């Protein structure tokens, strides 16, 4: 029982799989036991299956059909044809480039900014102050996604926003970029909004990692004459590596979503010149806005991107786990 307590949560696919096999093997010779158990789990499991498991399996199978929702009873099985079509679809490739660019703009700041902030907050000794800083750092995460994006866009408003006033009049650069209105700036702007909304989660995860580092290590290091920078490099970073790995892997998976919600909130689609049309947005439009409502093709696009994101996250995990620190 005690052992079982440890492995809930996110202990990784490997242990989930071995736990499942163990449970499967023992289920054969278990006695029926307390039948109240089935009554107690029924409502939750029913909801989970109906709105979780079933759509998941159904959605996966859809990717191998040419399901067109607007045509009655039209969902022929086509194998991998959707994926072949994708290879020749110019709009898909353009969207894939947008997703990739979004990810490149998103990943470095969403790891480095929380790292810096968490290291600073972890140095605060007074509990009431560190609690206040933690709440501030986490605040955007609890905002509704639409509110967060719109607040960010309000700050970057080309006419009334404070950022443009600051660039134009305070720094006297004489520029007023349109940010969310300029096709060249849309992806970085969306990525910035997204980083702002989500970085609190990473800050908090890294803080949990930092709080678990034994403070005596730093005392010993400073007695030995190690400065703040060397302490960070030789104590903080190596000991933070497990949590940093979690943060990197979670952040890379953004490729699978890459600003879809943000773009739909602001533009209800791909934005000016479709510059914000990532794969997620394109799939959404394919499924719900365009022509025959091609659900099969949209599901295939989502699946392709989801698999690429998973592989990428897996590679990151391998690389960070095996690499020896310095």
């Amino acid at each position, binding site marked *: 029982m005690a052992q079982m307590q440890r492995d809930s949560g996110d202990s990784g696919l490997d242990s989930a799989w071995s736990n499942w096999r163990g449970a499967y093997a023992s*289920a054969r010779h278990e006695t029926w036991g307390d*039948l109240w158990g*089935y009554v107690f789990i029924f409502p939750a499991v029913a909801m989970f299956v109906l709105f979780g498991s079933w759509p998941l399996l159904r959605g996966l199978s859809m990717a191998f059909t040419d399901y067109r929702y607007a045509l009655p009873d039209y969902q022929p099985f086509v194998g991998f044809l959707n994926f072949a079509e994708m290879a020749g679809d110019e709009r898909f490739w353009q969207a894939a480039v947008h997703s990739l660019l979004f990810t490149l703009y998103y990943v470095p700041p969403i790891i480095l900014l929380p790292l810096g902030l968490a290291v600073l907050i972890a140095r605060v000794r007074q509990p009431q102050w560190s609690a206040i800083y933690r709440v501030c750092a986490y605040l955007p995460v609890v905002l509704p996604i639409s509110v967060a994006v719109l607040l960010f866009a*309000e700050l970057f408003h080309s006419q009334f926003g404070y950022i443009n006033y600051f660039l134009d009049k305070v720094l006297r650069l004489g520029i007023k970029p349109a940010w969310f209105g300029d096709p060249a700036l849309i992806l970085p702007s969306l990525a910035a909004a997204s980083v702002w909304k989500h970085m609190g989660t990473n800050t908090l995860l890294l803080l949990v990692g930092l709080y678990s580092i034994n403070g005596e290590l730093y005392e010993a290091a400073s007695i030995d004459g190690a400065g703040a920078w060397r302490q960070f490099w030789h104590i903080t970073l190596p000991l933070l590596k497990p949590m940093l790995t979690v943060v990197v892997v979670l952040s890379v998976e953004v490729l699978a979503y890459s600003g879809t919600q943000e773009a739909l909130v602001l533009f209800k689609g791909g934005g000016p010149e479709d510059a914000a049309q990532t794969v997620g947005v394109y799939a959404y439009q394919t499924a719900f806005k365009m022509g025959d409502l091609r659900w099969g093709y949209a*599901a295939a696009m989502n*699946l392709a991107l989801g698999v690429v994101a998973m592989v990428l996250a897996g590679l990151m995990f391998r690389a960070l786990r095996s690499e020896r620190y310095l």
Partner: protein
Amino acid sequence: MSHSDVVVHGPITGGRRSAIARTVVWIRHHRGRILLHTILFIALLIFLLPIVWTVSASLKGRTELFLPVPSLFPVQPTLDNYVYVLTRLKGFPGYFGNSVLVTGLAVTLTVLFSTLAGYAFARLKFRGRDLIYYTLVLQTFIPRAGGLMALYEVMQSLGLRDNLLGLALLFVGNIGVPIFIMRQTFFNLPGEFEDAAQIDGANRWQTFVRVMAPMATSGMILVATFAFIYIWGEFLITLTMIDDPDKFTLALGIANLNLNNASWQTDSEVLPYGTQAAAYLLAALPTLVVFIALQKWFVRGMAEGLKF
């Protein structure tokens, strides 16, 4: 050794000079801490600038928004924007009511169902218990491909699409993490009370309702908070499931505010920019209040390895 014990060396001769001297010594002594708090204060002010700026814009009237030099803090704060949103902005009260209905129902059911299931998975012994549980866990690793379309199909066939009660039920389907949290909570409770209740002749249901569930309130609060913040702010599924503008929730409604009317230019004492700001903040207010009131549960939840 505590940093707050300030030791002033040498004779203290009273008067102004020594007060200044003491301040200088205090500052020197706390150099590091002052620097740290200053950096953090500035960093977090920049970080929260979108919120600060929107709060400020929401408190500015027409004249102030048109000033050539905008101030970060309003000079003549006014609540006109909020009054406008709450009394005259089309749709806003309706969106609010819809959000309250959907979130209230979904959070209540999520807490109820996950508490029941968590108790059974942690405390009751029945055939296939662990098999069912680990099947749920395993599922969280499968990538979601056509999930949105498949959900649309399920909702359509159940006649629950474009229906607020249906939307609430759909959100209850997001019960995986709540089950994990409640199972963990019941694992960590001592077993003696349960045994005592059984000996006193209480059946399973009575033991659960009278003895075990009341001891699991910490887990329930955590589940309710996570669920509240997620459901109140959910956008993509709501956008897909709700067509009728009268049924929009706030998260969806505020992305569809139509304030770019020409009459704004002349008639009104408020401007779209300020009114939008007020509407955004009112829409976010419930999640902010819930989060700040219950923030200590969040860090504890994160520390126990649960992701939000």
